[in-house]
């Protein structure tokens, strides 16, 4: 039954309408703030998010489909000319990198022998999974991307993600068919690095979107120059050692300050490359030695070490 009604007519005031909008706003506002606080402190929502991600995945793919189809059609009718140009460029590139590729086999043999001599473990023990970037995170306050493989490919939270140029970030949440990768440029995301030229160790901190990452807590006298390459040092056990991370851009040594201000530019292009590689768990160093069982024991061993060292 359809009734015809005047739009601006409100129900007469004698109908009960519940609490006033302001009261409701105050109630729901406080509730939201409580929820936000609880989420920041206790992270109790991970389970709900897992379920939501599974439900949302088909919807998201369905929404994505028209765009993908368009892209496919466009690619199909892409001019022969571009393809020929691409082909020529790739052939040229192949010739350019040929010497290094040809030398690779002998270098690998040599490296293997040296490693055997040193009884070192091979660097990447675990497997690696190639993934495709699905989309960028929607939250403008964080630097995250989502990739198309998750628990189905055995990806675990904490694994390092790289592209052909360097470290992209770290897997932070894993869903059944996708995973969330936090980029190295996310605010306060830390990567332990080593300067290639001088071997100085430092920690590379992201600063958020649109701000250059920094090397914090470096003395003004530290041996770091602009254009120095930064590689992972591997001491955190998350990122395997020897991956390219960034290039130092500016170094300000203000004698009035305790620390130098050093900014760097990440090498990997998370916003450019659409294929990434997730390095398996074994890629990083061996696990930490077991922690002492109780706090007392920890204190004792700590002191013991100190004495021995001194």
């Amino acid at each position, binding site marked *: 039954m359809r009734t015809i009604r005047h739009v601006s007519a409100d129900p007469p005031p004698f109908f009960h309408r519940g609490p006033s909008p302001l009261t409701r*706003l105050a109630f729901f506002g406080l509730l939201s703030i409580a929820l936000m606080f609880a989420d*920041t402190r206790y992270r109790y929502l991970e389970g709900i998010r897992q379920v*939501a991600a599974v439900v949302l995945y088909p919807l998201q793919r369905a929404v994505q489909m028209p765009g993908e189809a368009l892209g496919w059609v466009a690619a199909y009718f892409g001019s022969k000319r571009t393809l020929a140009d691409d082909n020529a460029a790739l052939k040229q590139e192949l010739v350019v990198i040929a010497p290094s590729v040809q030398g690779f086999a002998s270098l690998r043999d040599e490296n293997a022998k040296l490693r055997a001599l040193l009884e070192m473990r091979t660097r990447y023990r675990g497997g690696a999974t190639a993934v495709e970037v699905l989309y960028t995170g*929607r939250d403008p306050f964080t630097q995250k991307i989502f990739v198309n493989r998750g628990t189905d490919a055995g990806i675990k939270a904490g694994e390092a993600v790289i592209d052909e140029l360097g470290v992209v970030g770290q897997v932070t949440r894993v869903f059944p068919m996708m995973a969330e990768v936090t980029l190295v440029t996310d*605010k306060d995301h830390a990567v332990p690095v080593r300067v290639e030229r001088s071997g100085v160790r430092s920690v590379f901190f992201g600063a*958020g*979107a649109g701000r250059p990452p920094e090397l914090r807590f470096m003395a003004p006298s530290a041996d770091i120059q602009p254009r120095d390459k930064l590689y992972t040092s591997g001491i955190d056990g998350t990122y395997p050692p020897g991956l390219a991370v960034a290039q130092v851009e500016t170094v300000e040594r203000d004698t009035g300050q305790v620390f130098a201000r050093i900014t760097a530019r990440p090498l990997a292009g998370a916003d450019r490359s659409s294929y990434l590689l997730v390095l398996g768990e074994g890629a990083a160093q061996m696990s930490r030695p077991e922690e002492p069982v109780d706090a007392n024991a920890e204190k004792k061993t700590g002191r013991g070490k100190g004495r021995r060292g001194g």
Partner: protein
Amino acid sequence: MNYPRATTFGSARPEEILRSVNPWFILLTFFLGFLGNVAPAAGLTLMLRPDFLALVILYWCIQEPRYVGVGVAWMLGLVMDVGDATLFGQHALAYAVLAYGAEYFRRRVQRFPLWQQAPQVGVLLLVCAALVLLVRVVGGAPLPRWTYMVSPIVGALLWPLLSMLLQWPQRPTRSPGER
């Protein structure tokens, strides 16, 4: 009293009688708005994309305050929070404030033609964005790029179009002789 004549971009004038809305239609538009928000995007699209769900909530709060109010908006915000994997409660707070703003200004906003409603809606959306910004920055997040403020403005620009779309099913069918 003279109201501006309803043109293509004019709203249904206050005297114009609209059919009552089907609650299922409201639900459907919420679902579509949600889909629009969770659809994957990157780069420019992500920057320009308005918060569709917020716009739809705003529309229904202004047109049908008996169906959609602060409580419904808050719950939709929670759904959006789960879908978005952001801070839980962030969208809920923003949408509740939006619904309150809509309820407060709705009599005024309705008097204007759609293109004049757009800036007023834009202010509401900007206030919401600023509120989210405040909450997140207090919570320790870095300041986002300036492009953060682009999406509310795009939302305001889309308002006339969206209002017309949402109003379509409620428009009365005219007899051929009219107009």
